[in-house]
């Protein structure tokens, strides 16, 4: 905005204040999911003229991107984004020979809402344990399905 030729006659500080005010207004309105009439009423109370209110509202309609960003801001526990697995068959180790044991190594890719990176959660499990895990996840999915049908 500071480089815009149309605005170069205006004091940059005032420009910054205007920009901040407009941005705050849009964010607050978006946060409250206010509709056009609510915004118009609010702006009228602030003694803005009709033309300006209409322009503001038209621009406000294009606020989808802001909604998306607001939707994703916020704290939450580590978020699982993906899973990878490995099936191995152990033959022997330094303590024990002829182990002949299949095992799974499961890695859950996780994302931190703050810093964006976090060491992945890895663990090993037997086939029975993996079946237990999958069973529990399926229970959760079924509950979700039932909840959405209510």
């Amino acid at each position, binding site marked *: 905005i500071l480089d815009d030729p149309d605005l170069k006659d205006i004091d940059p500080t005032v420009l910054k204040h205007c920009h901040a005010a407009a941005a705050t207004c849009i964010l607050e309105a978006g946060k409250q999911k206010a509709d056009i009439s609510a915004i118009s009423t609010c702006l009228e109370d602030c003694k803005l003229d009709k033309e300006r209110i209409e322009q503001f509202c038209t621009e406000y309609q294009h606020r989808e991107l802001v909604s998306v960003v607001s939707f994703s801001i916020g704290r939450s526990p580590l978020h699982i984004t993906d899973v990878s697995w490995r099936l191995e068959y152990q033959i022997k180790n330094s303590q024990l020979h002829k182990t002949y044991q299949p095992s799974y190594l499961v890695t859950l890719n996780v994302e931190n809402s703050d810093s964006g990176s976090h060491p992945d959660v890895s663990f090993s499990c037997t086939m029975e344990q993996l079946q237990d895990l999958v069973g529990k996840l399926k*229970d959760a999915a079924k509950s979700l399905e039932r909840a959405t049908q209510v």
Partner: protein
Amino acid sequence: KLNIGVDIIEHGVEGLVYLLTESSKLMISEVDFQDSIHVLGFSDELNKSLLQLYLDNRKEIRSILGELAPRLPSYHSLEWRLDVQLASRSLRQQIKPAVTMKLHLNQNEDQTAQVLQTDPATLLHLIQQLEQALGEMKMNHCRRIVRNMK
């Protein structure tokens, strides 16, 4: 009671321990065990007792040795819960379903619990991926290897 020096008993016990752990570790057959101790020149009766001792305790020794092998954190259990986020500081009036989970893992006798979260789409993806993993054990390739490795 035995009227022998402490050193000799200590060496005797150590020798016995070594014999049993090495035999259990390698899972040697009865015949091999008998051949091995025959070299020591003990009486037949003693050899029989040693063999019986080996066979009786082999399983337990192997399970203890199994605990000593290097291990990754292993799966213990999973608890889950369905949440719906209704509002946050940056956005009101939401409906954001999520599944919150507590993954219990064992690492070298410590139990850790990690709280994780995922969205419905990722949950279904996790289930699909892990079911594929489980299916692998039943595939011909894995079956053939397990058969031939024994």
